[in-house]
């Protein structure tokens, strides 16, 4: 298990970091995003989406639970979930959402703590902590050995 942590000073920096993280990702990867309201979870996913070149615009999936972005030129789809309104893993399974995890795209789940038990052990765990108005500590826990240090410019 590797743990990697850094401070992001702005929302733009968080999105730019996520773009570099996207270069390390491959189809089948699952990202669990946790952090309070306004911590930057959707911002992070928008950075990922931009780099992956997926179709459709990133927006908060709180209402629809899932925003399904088809693959663009890089050939990888992005499934953007939000578990904020789910009451637990039962709803996750009943909605058939676990099937996306095994599909050939990258899955990013906001408020993943709600459905933690449903996620595979190799899930990339990303926590965003609010340090100040714009400053965030971003911590990544990952069982994979891919070089996370290269995401810092």
């Amino acid at each position, binding site marked *: 298990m590797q743990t990697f942590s850094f401070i992001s000073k702005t929302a733009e920096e968080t999105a730019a970091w996520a773009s570099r993280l996207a270069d390390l990702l491959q189809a089948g990867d699952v990202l669990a995003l946790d952090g309070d*309201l*306004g911590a930057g979870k959707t911002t992070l996913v928008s950075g990922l989406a931009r780099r992956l070149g997926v179709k*459709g615009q990133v*927006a*908060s999936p*709180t209402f*629809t*639970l899932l925003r399904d972005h088809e693959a663009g030129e890089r050939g990888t789809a992005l499934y953007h979930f939000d578990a904020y309104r789910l*009451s637990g893993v039962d709803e996750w399974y009943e909605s058939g959402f676990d099937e996306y995890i095994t599909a050939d795209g990258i899955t990013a789940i906001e408020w993943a703590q709600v459905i933690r038990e449903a996620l595979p052990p190799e899930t990339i765990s990303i926590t965003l902590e609010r340090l100040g108005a714009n400053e965030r500590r971003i911590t990544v826990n990952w069982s994979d050995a891919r070089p996370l240090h290269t995401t810092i410019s």
Partner: protein
Amino acid sequence: MRMTNCKNIAVDRAEPIYILGIETSCDETSAAIVADGRRIVSNVIASQIDLHQSYGGVVPELASRQHVKTILPVIEEAVSLSGLTLAAIDGIAVTAGPGLIGALLVGVSAAKALAFAIERPLIAVNHLAGHIAANYLCDSELEPPFLALVVSGAHAHIVYVQDYSDYSLIARTQDDAAGEVFDKLARAVGLGYPGGPIIEQKAQGGNCKAFPLPHPLIKDSLDFSFSGVKTAALNVLNQAEQLAKKNGQSRREILSDKDFAATVQETIVEILTAHLSQAQKITNARTITLAGGVSANLRLREAVTEMADQIGVKLIVPDIKLCTDNAAMIAAAGYFLWRDGIYSDLSLNATALWELSEI
């Protein structure tokens, strides 16, 4: 979305065209009958707000189950209140998206079964087009083209309605919806759900300039970004809480719910109004309409009325009860599709992310 397109042969008959509308995209189960797309014959709405209140928001699976329980009684009541028989219905219009997939499927399945049973056309209606069509029910003279601000718990769109089934998206949110900010902030200050009406009520008599909030602008675009407003408001709340802790006070002594709600509301209203005014300049629309749950907000109505008066355009605002989700607006939108022969077949499926621009 598969659709068949067969132009209706002009029906020359004295009786109106009756469309039965069905809406189950979120937490209201509703069925309605509308005559000629303009007159409500019946409109039955069963709300699930009580059910979801304790969770601070709609719980998707609970919502679907509740829709299954209430959909048939609601349709029966809408037909019975209309005094019509099913044989008098000319078409079945149903919300096919966007919305919660499980919730949408309940309405779509019921509509398909009914259309098959009474042998009438099935019409797939986009939920946002439905919200916009609420205006046809409130102003019998309203005709496209016009500009619509669609704001709800799930949306923040500015749409130019070129024709009854031709929409151009002028602006949308790049992150949170307008109502979502109200919902999340109301929850953050412990005021409950749904956030919109609660924030509006709390805002009364509060200082609407209690603290500064950003008005985020996106380069070369009229798109909205409410996430930054939400984060800035949460920062102010956190600071007040920390200061209160240090001084041994309660947060409310430093920042009252009233002032917090008033400032958040005013900022959202200012942003919506400013973008709408810009959109009017670009499209040169002579009529502006409001739609969606957040358009029930009286402060928003007031600000948009002021803006419309200033630039000299006509403003149409739906009745408050037609702003939130209801099937009458779906039936109204469905009528104009029916008239143009835009039907769906029984393979119709619900689409959680059906963009208005894809119509």
